[in-house]
């Protein structure tokens, strides 16, 4: 449990981000979520929990990230828990991949994570407390045809997260990475039933994960009892990436 802590979840309006925001809300956190396409609804959680604070923010904009932190700090307090979940895909084979497609995915998935972590760690350093979780992907280490940009960005999060874990460890700030496999979200829904079933047939557990199952791992990593875990990459992939 992470009761009373202030959490910021990027990409919190749907998918893994939303499930994580709701889980932290249920665990008693005061949760802000950044959204780009549509704010999460409803904002209310179970009785006794605080409503989610929706913050409009395109994480690729340094100004909007700064404004999102300012708003969260004013309304809820300094961010103690940061979950970087904002991410996009733009799949195609390398030979067909444009510079724009490459850059957009790296910018949103990796560079924006640098930006939000940098901003959050300033206050965490002073507080001598912090929990950062980056949402990577099984494909970061496994590879995935048609996803060179996405896989590179997600593998980048592992190196980034572990380096940051070392930088901040002396200040009671942990940085961990969660690597989900196939998860039932809007991001995988676009793949279509056939491709999705082909993907899940390769999963030892023979099914896709629900976003809540990924959120459970995040909730544990940001809890008090995970205080000795840092620089870890936790797979939540039904066994798909075993051995990596």
């Amino acid at each position, binding site marked *: 449990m992470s009761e009373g802590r202030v959490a910021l979840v990027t990409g919190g309006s749907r998918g893994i981000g939303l499930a994580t925001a709701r889980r932290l809300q249920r665990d008693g956190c005061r949760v802000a979520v950044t959204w780009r396409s549509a704010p999460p609804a409803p904002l209310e959680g179970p009785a006794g929990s605080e409503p989610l604070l929706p913050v409009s923010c395109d994480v690729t904009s340094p100004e909007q990230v700064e404004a999102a932190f300012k708003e969260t700090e004013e309304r809820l307090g300094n961010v103690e828990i940061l979950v970087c979940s904002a991410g996009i895909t733009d799949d195609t084979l390398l030979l067909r991949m444009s510079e724009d497609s490459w850059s957009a995915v790296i910018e949103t998935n990796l560079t924006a994570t640098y930006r939000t972590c940098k901003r959050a760690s*300033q206050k965490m*350093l*002073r507080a001598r407390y912090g929990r950062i979780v980056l949402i990577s992907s099984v494909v970061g280490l496994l590879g995935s045809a048609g996803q060179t940009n996405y896989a590179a960005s997600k593998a980048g999060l592992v190196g980034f997260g572990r380096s940051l874990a070392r*930088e*901040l460890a*002396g*200040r009671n700030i942990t940085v961990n990475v969660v690597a989900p496999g196939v998860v039932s979200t809007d991001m995988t829904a676009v793949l279509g039933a056939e491709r999705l079933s082909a993907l899940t047939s390769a999963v030892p557990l023979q099914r896709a994960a629900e976003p809540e199952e990924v959120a459970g791992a995040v909730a544990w990593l940001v809890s008090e009892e995970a205080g000795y875990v840092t620089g870890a990459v936790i797979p939540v992939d039904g066994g798909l990436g075993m051995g990596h």
Partner: protein
Amino acid sequence: MTRVDNEAAFEKFKECAVEVLQVPAEKITPAASFAGDLEADSLEVVELVMALEEAFDITVEESELEGVETIGQAFELVTSKL
């Protein structure tokens, strides 16, 4: 800068250093070295620089920090920007 201004600036500098480095004020002398006398690691030095940037409303470039190893050198860097 007059002597009085300089002393006032050093007092402000000292306040930042005491708060960030968590050391007694008397240890903040011009000759004190960050790594040796103050046992400050690289992250604490960066935190101090950020606190000084805020307190004095200045900007310090990464390259300017090279060779800055003592309180005196850091203070000189700050006052050169005022």
